[in-house]
C-alpha cells in the first residue's frame, strides 16, 4: 500500500501572495491493518506554513489505487476521504468566510445550504414558522428562531422578524435559498444597511434582473438574443388584448416580478388573454405584492435550456454549462438534466458567453441562472435571469464537481473565483426528478396534503443524491410548496443516469400522500424522452387526454400477477410459523403447491405457485425469487432472471394486495372553482356535467382536505 498524498491546491488569486501549494502527507495505511478505519487526525500533517488554505484537491491516481484494493478498503477509504475532508475544511476553511450564517428558508434548500455550511465549519441558524418547529431544517441547524405563524407572509416573508433573528443570533450572513426573499431587493437592501452579507447578488442586479422589462432592455444592450415581443406594463385586460393583437398569437402573459412559471399563462385568443390577465395579475399580487405584467411572443415548440453562471465581486464570471428543463407542467419544471441532448458545443459556448456578458453587464456576483428558450433550429432567446440558486442546481454540481453553495459563500465573502472557464468540465450526465406531493392524474399534478406515514429515500443506491427537507412523519401542509424532494441520479452516460433514475424511483417509498412518481417514471422511460426529442410541450403532447398512468403490457401484467401470487403464498407460509408453540400440528404435510385465482383489474388468472418459488401462470412457467422480507415496503424480486423493484403498499387477510410498480388510475373534466393552495392557483374540475346546487366557501377562505366546497346536482 503506497503512501497516499493529498495535494492541497491553495490558489487565491485575489488575496495574499504567500499562498502556495500545500502538501498534506498521510502516512499510515501500510503500517496498519487495512481492515480498520485507519485515519485519525494526527496522521494529517500540513507541511506548509501557509495560513490560507482555500481549496484542496485529491490527487486522483493515488486515490483510485486505494479504492482498488477491495470493497472493505473502499468502504474505509470513503470514510478516510470524509474524515480528511472534514479535518481539512475545518482546519483550513472555517475561519475565512463567515462564522455564522442564517438561512432564510425552509425545507430541502435550507438543509442543502446547511450541509455545505457544516462542511465549511460555519455555524447555521434556521428560521421557521410555528408549524415548522420540528422540521428537519430546524433540527439540523445549530440554532433556530421562530419567526411567526404558518402563512408565509407572516413568517418566511416576514422581514422584520428575520432581521430580528439575525441580530439576536449574530449571524454575519444570510443565505436566502430560492423563493421567499431570495430575489427581494428590499431584503438585500436592509441586510446591507445592517452590515450583514447577503449571499447572492447585490441589490442592483436583483432589481435589474427581477424586472422582466428592465432585464430585457439590459439583455438587448449586452447583445443577448431576446424574444420578439412587447415590453411594457399592462394596465388592464383590454390593453392586454390590444398588445397581444400587435404581437400576434400565441402570446405569453406573466408577472413581471415573478420567477419560474408563477403567474405565467399562455393565450391563443382574446378571450384567453383576458382570462390570463386576470389570473396572472391576481397571482402576481398575492405572491409578490406587485401586479405588473408582461406580454410577449410565445415561441412554439420551444425547449427551456438555462445556463448556470457564477460571478465574483471582482468582475470575473464563468458559465457552468447548461441545464435542460423542458419537461414542465403548467410552466413548472418536473424533470431536468445536464447537459442537454440538444446543444452542440458551439451553441453551448454561444449561450454561455451571452449569459456571462449579461452577468457582467449587471455587475453580477454569486450564482445565477440565465434562462433561454431554444427553438428547433437552435436559435435561442433570453427569457429571464434568476438571481439566486436554482432548485435544479444539483445537476450542475454533479457534472462540474463544484459545490455551488460553497462558491456562493466564498464569493459573498469577497474571494475571487478559483476556476477558469477552461477548468469547467462536463463529466457524465445528471438527471433530476422533482418528487412532489401531487396527484399526477389531475392536470399532471394537483397538490395533495397529508402526513408521510412511511418514507424511505433510495439513498442506498449508488450515484443517487436526494435533497429533501422532510422525513417520515413530516406533514405536507397547505401552507408551503408540496415538493417532497429532488431526486438526482448521475452516470457516466445519459443511459446510465436514466437507468439509475428508474431504479431510484422504484425504490422510493412514499406513503401517506399522493405523489407524482408514476408520472416521473413514465416520463423518463418514454421513448421520446429517451431519444431526447422533448420540448416544453412534452407532457401535453404525449398525454393529450391527461396522464392516465402506466398502461400495463401483457408481460408486465404477467410479472405483476406472478409477484402478487408469490407475495400471497409467502404470507400464507409465514402465517403458520409459530415460534415455540408446541401445539401446532406435527402430522400435517407441508404444503407444496398453491392453486390460486388472481384478479388484476378485471382479468382473472389461474396461478399455481410451488413451494420453491416457481409460478405457473395460465399454463406458462415463471420463476419468481426474492428475500421476501414482508416487513419492508420494498420488495426486490427477480422474475425470470430480471431484477424488479416492487413496493408492497398494502396487504390484507382477504388476499387483497396493492403493489406499486407502474401507475394506474383515471380522472377527467370544466373549471368550476379556483382553490389557492401552496402558492399555486389550481382549478378544480367537475368530473361530470351537473348543475351547481350550492357553494360552501367564500373567496379567501382557507379550505382543508375533504371540505365540501361546491355541491352539484
Amino acid at each position, binding site marked *: 500500500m503506497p503512501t497516499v498524498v493529498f495535494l492541497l491546491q491553495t490558489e487565491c488569486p485575489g488575496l495574499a501572495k504567500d499562498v502556495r501549494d500545500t502538501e498534506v502527507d498521510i502516512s499510515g495505511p501500510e503500517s496498519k491493518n487495512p481492515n480498520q478505519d485507519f485515519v485519525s487526525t494526527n496522521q494529517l500533517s500540513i507541511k506548509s506554513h501557509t495560513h490560507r488554505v482555500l481549496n484542496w484537491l485529491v490527487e486522483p491516481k493515488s486515490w483510485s489505487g486505494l479504492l482498488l484494493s477491495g470493497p472493505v478498503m473502499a468502504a474505509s477509504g470513503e470514510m478516510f476521504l470524509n474524515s480528511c475532508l472534514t479535518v481539512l475544511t475545518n482546519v483550513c476553511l472555517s475561519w475565512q468566510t463567515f462564522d455564522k450564517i442564517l438561512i432564510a428558508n425552509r425545507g430541502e434548500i435550507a438543509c442543502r445550504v446547511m450541509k455545505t455550511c457544516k462542511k465549511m465549519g460555519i455555524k447555521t441558524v434556521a428560521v421557521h414558522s410555528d408549524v415548522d418547529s420540528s422540521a428537519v431544517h430546524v433540527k439540523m441547524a445549530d440554532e433556530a428562531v421562530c419567526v411567526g405563524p404558518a402563512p408565509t407572509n407572516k413568517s418566511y416573508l416576514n422581514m422584520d422578524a428575520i432581521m430580528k433573528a439575525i441580530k439576536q443570533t449574530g449571524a454575519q450572513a444570510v443565505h436566502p435559498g430560492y423563493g421567499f426573499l431570495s430575489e427581494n431587493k428590499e431584503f438585500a437592501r436592509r441586510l446591507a444597511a445592517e452590515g450583514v452579507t447577503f449571499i447572492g447578488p447585490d441589490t442592483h442586479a436583483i432589481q435589474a434582473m427581477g424586472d422582466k422589462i428592465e432585464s430585457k432592455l439590459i439583455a438587448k444592450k449586452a447583445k443577448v438574443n431576446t424574444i420578439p415581443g412587447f415590453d411594457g406594463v399592462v394596465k388592464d385586460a383590454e390593453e392586454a388584448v390590444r398588445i397581444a393583437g400587435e404581437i400576434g398569437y400565441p402570446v405569453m402573459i406573466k408577472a413581471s416580478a415573478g420567477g419560474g412559471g408563477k403567474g405565467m399563462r399562455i393565450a391563443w385568443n382574446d378571450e384567453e388573454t383576458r382570462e390570463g390577465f386576470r389570473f396572472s395579475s391576481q397571482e402576481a399580487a398575492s405572491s409578490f405584492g406587485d401586479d405588473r405584467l408582461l406580454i410577449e411572443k410565445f415561441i412554439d415548440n420551444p425547449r427551456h435550456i438555462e445556463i448556470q453562471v457564477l460571478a465574483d465581486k471582482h468582475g470575473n464570471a464563468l458559465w457552468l454549462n447548461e441545464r435542460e428543463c423542458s419537461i414542465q407542467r403548467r410552466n413548472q419544471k418536473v424533470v431536468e438534466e445536464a447537459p442537454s441532448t440538444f446543444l452542440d458545443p458551439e451553441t453551448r459556448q454561444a449561450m454561455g458567453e451571452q449569459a456571462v456578458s449579461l452577468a457582467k453587464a449587471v455587475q453580477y456576483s454569486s450564482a445565477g441562472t440565465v434562462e433561454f428558450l431554444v427553438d428547433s433550429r437552435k436559435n435561442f432567446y433570453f427569457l429571464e435571469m434568476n438571481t439566486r440558486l436554482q432548485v435544479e442546481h444539483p445537476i450542475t454540481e454533479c457534472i462540474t464537481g463544484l459545490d455551488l453553495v460553497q462558491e456562493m459563500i466564498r464569493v459573498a465573502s469577497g474571494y475571487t473565483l478559483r476556476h477558469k472557464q477552461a477548468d469547467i468540465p462536463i463529466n457524465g450526465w445528471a438527471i433530476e426528478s422533482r418528487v412532489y406531493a401531487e396527484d399526477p392524474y389531475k392536470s399532471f399534478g394537483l397538490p395533495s396534503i397529508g402526513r408521510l406515514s412511511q418514507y424511505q429515500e433510495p439513498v442506498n443506491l449508488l450515484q443517487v443524491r436526494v435533497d429533501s427537507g422532510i422525513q417520515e412523519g413530516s406533514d405536507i401542509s397547505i401552507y408551503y410548496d408540496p415538493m417532497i424532494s429532488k431526486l438526482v441520479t448521475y452516470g457516466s452516460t445519459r443511459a446510465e443516469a436514466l437507468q439509475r433514475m428508474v431504479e431510484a424511483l422504484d425504490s422510493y417509498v412514499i406513503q401517506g400522500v399522493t405523489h407524482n412518481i408514476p408520472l416521473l417514471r413514465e416520463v423518463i422511460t418514454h421513448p421520446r424522452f429517451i431519444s431526447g426529442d422533448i420540448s416544453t410541450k412534452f407532457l401535453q403532447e404525449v398525454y393529450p387526454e391527461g396522464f392516465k398512468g402506466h398502461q400495463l403490457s401483457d408481460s408486465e401484467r404477467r410479472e405483476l400477477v406472478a409477484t402478487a*401470487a408469490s407475495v400471497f403464498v409467502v404470507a400464507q407460509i409465514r402465517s403458520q410459523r*409459530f*415460534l415455540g408453540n408446541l401445539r401446532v400440528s406435527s402430522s400435517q404435510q407441508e404444503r407444496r403447491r398453491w392453486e390460486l385465482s388472481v384478479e388484476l383489474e378485471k382479468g*382473472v388468472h*389461474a396461478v399455481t405457485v410451488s413451494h420453491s418459488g416457481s409460478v405457473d401462470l395460465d399454463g406458462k412457467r415463471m420463476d419468481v425469487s426474492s428475500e421476501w*422480507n414482508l416487513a419492508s415496503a420494498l420488495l426486490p424480486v427477480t422474475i425470470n432472471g430480471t431484477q424488479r423493484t416492487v413496493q408492497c403498499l398494502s396487504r390484507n*387477510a382477504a*388476499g387483497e394486495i*396493492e403493489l406499486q410498480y*407502474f401507475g394506474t388510475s383515471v380522472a377527467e373534466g370544466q373549471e368550476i372553482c379556483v382553490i389557492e393552495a401552496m402558492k399555486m392557483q389550481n382549478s378544480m374540475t367537475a368530473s361530470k356535467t351537473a348543475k351547481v346546487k350550492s357553494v360552501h366557501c367564500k373567496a379567501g377562505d382557507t379550505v382543508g382536505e375533504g371540505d365540501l366546497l361546491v355541491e352539484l346536482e
Partner: protein
Amino acid sequence: MAAFTVARSGGRFLRGLYAFKGLGTGRYGPAVSAVRSVTQQQMRSYCAGHLSVQERIEKKRRAALVGGGQKRIDAQHQRGKLTARERIELLLDPDSFVEYDMFVEHRCSDFGMEADHNKYPGDSVVTGQGRINERLVYVFSQDFTVFGGSLSGAHAQKICKIMDQAMLVGAPVIGLNDSGGARIQEGVESLAGYADIFLRNVTASGVIPQISLIMGPCAGGAVYSPALTDFTFMVKDTSYLFITGPDVVKSVTNEDVTQEELGGAKTHTAVSGVAHRAFENDIDALLNLRDFFNFLPLSNQDAAPVMECHDPSDRLVPGLDTVVPLESTKAYDMLDIIHGIVDEREFFEIMPSYAKNIVVGFARMNGRTVGIVGNQPKVASGCLDINSSVKGARFVRFCDAFNIPIITFVDVPGFLPGTAQEYGGIIRHGAKLLFAFAEATVPKITIITRKAYGGAYDVMSSKHLRGDVNYAWPSAEVAVMGAKGAVQIIFRGKENQAEAEAEYVEKFANPFPAAVRGFVDDIIRPSATRKRICRDLEVLASKKQTNPWKKHANIPL
C-alpha cells in the same frame, strides 16, 4: 399502483358463491355406480347385507353433504351466502376438517316431522374440528338450507358435544351462525338446547376463546350465545341479530323499522356495540377470521402466540417524534402511533366504529401478540365516556384472561361531563375500565403520549394500578386537570389569571411531576418507543402475578 385480489384454493372461491354445485355426484359418483352394478347381479349372500349398510352409509353421507338440497343451496348462493360446508372449507386449512355427528338426525315426531323426507343426516348444523394455520380449533356451522338452520334438540346436542371436547383439550370454538331461530316443531326441547349451549358458553368463558361469526339471521333467544362469546363478528348486508324482528316490533311499539336498521351489521358495530366488527362478505369474513385467529392463544393455559417476525424489534420510528401536535388542544390520530409501533403496521382493530374515542385491538410486537388500548384524541378529544369505558374494559379483560400483554397509550383529558353521562351511569361504567385494568395480571405497559388528566389518568393502566412499565413522552402532561380549569379553582376571583396559568403550565404541563415521584419509569423519545416496548415485553414474558383466591370478583356490571 395495481390492486390484486388473491383467493385461496383456486377460482372456485373467488367467484365462489356457486362453487359447490354438483358436489356429491362428482366426488362420490363412481363408488355409487359400483355398488349398483353389484346389486344388479343379485348376489344374495351375507355380503349383500353388509353392502347394503355400506350403501346406506354412502347414501347418508351424500345426503349430509348436500344439506337441504341443491335448490336451497342455489337459493343460499343467490343471497350472496356460502353454504355451511363451504364456509368451513374456507375457514380451515385444506383437508383438515374432521366432522362429527354426520349421522345425527332430529328426533321430532310431531307435525309430520318424522317423515323420511323431513330428516336430514347431520340435521341443520355441521360440527367438527380442524386446523387454522395448523392450530386446533372446534367449529360449528349452522346450515340454513336445512329447516332454515333452525335449532333442534339434536342440533344443540351436536354443538354442545364439540364445546365439551374443546374444553377438554383446550382449544377455541368458532361458531358460524346462520339460523332462523328455534325449531318451533320441537318446542321446549329446542329451548332446552339453547340453554345447554348458553351454559357451556358461560363455563368456557375465560377458559378457551370463543368466537361467533354471524353469517345470516340470528334472532330471539339464539342471540345470547354470540353475546356470551368473546367476539361477535358480522357479515354486512346478510346478517342480522335481534331479540324480536321488525314485525313484532311494529305490533308492540308501532315502530317501522327494517331488519337492517334493527339488527344489521351497521347497527351493531356502530350503535349498539353488540358486534365487534363487520366484514364485506362471507369470504372476506372467513379469511379475516383466519387472520384474527392467529392472534389468540388456544386456551388460558397457553401463552399468547409468538410468530416469526421480519420487522426489526429495535426499529426507530422517526415519524413519532412529530406525531403529537405542539398545541395541546390539537387532535391527532392515535392510529398513526399504533401503526408506527406495531409489527408491519398490522393492527386488527376491535370495534372500530363504536365508541371511537377509544381504540382497542390486537397487534404483534416482535412477533408476540399484544392487546392495544389507546385513547383517540381525534374523537371527542379522547375522553372516556360510558361506551368507551365498557368497550375498553371488555377488551382488557379478554387480554387478561388469555395471557395477552396489554399496551396502553394514554391521551385522555378526563371523563366526559354532562347529565347524559351521569344519568347513564358513567360512575358505574367507568368503574368497569378501572376494575379491568386494576385486576389484570398480564404484562402491562403504558405510554402517556400527551394528556393524562384527573381520574382518567388513574384509570388508564397507571403505575398505581400495577402498571409494569409506564413511560411518558416529552409531550406528556400528568395533572388533575388542564391549566385553565385548575387556575380558575386555585386562584378563584384573583386577577392575573393568565400569569397563574403560565405558572401552572410550567409546573404541571410536562412529564416531570409524575417522573420525580416515580409514577412514570422513564421519559422516552417517541421514536424509540417500539424498541423500548419490545425489550420490556421480553423481560415481562416471565411475569408471574396472581390475585387473591376468590370465587370470582364482583365487577360493577
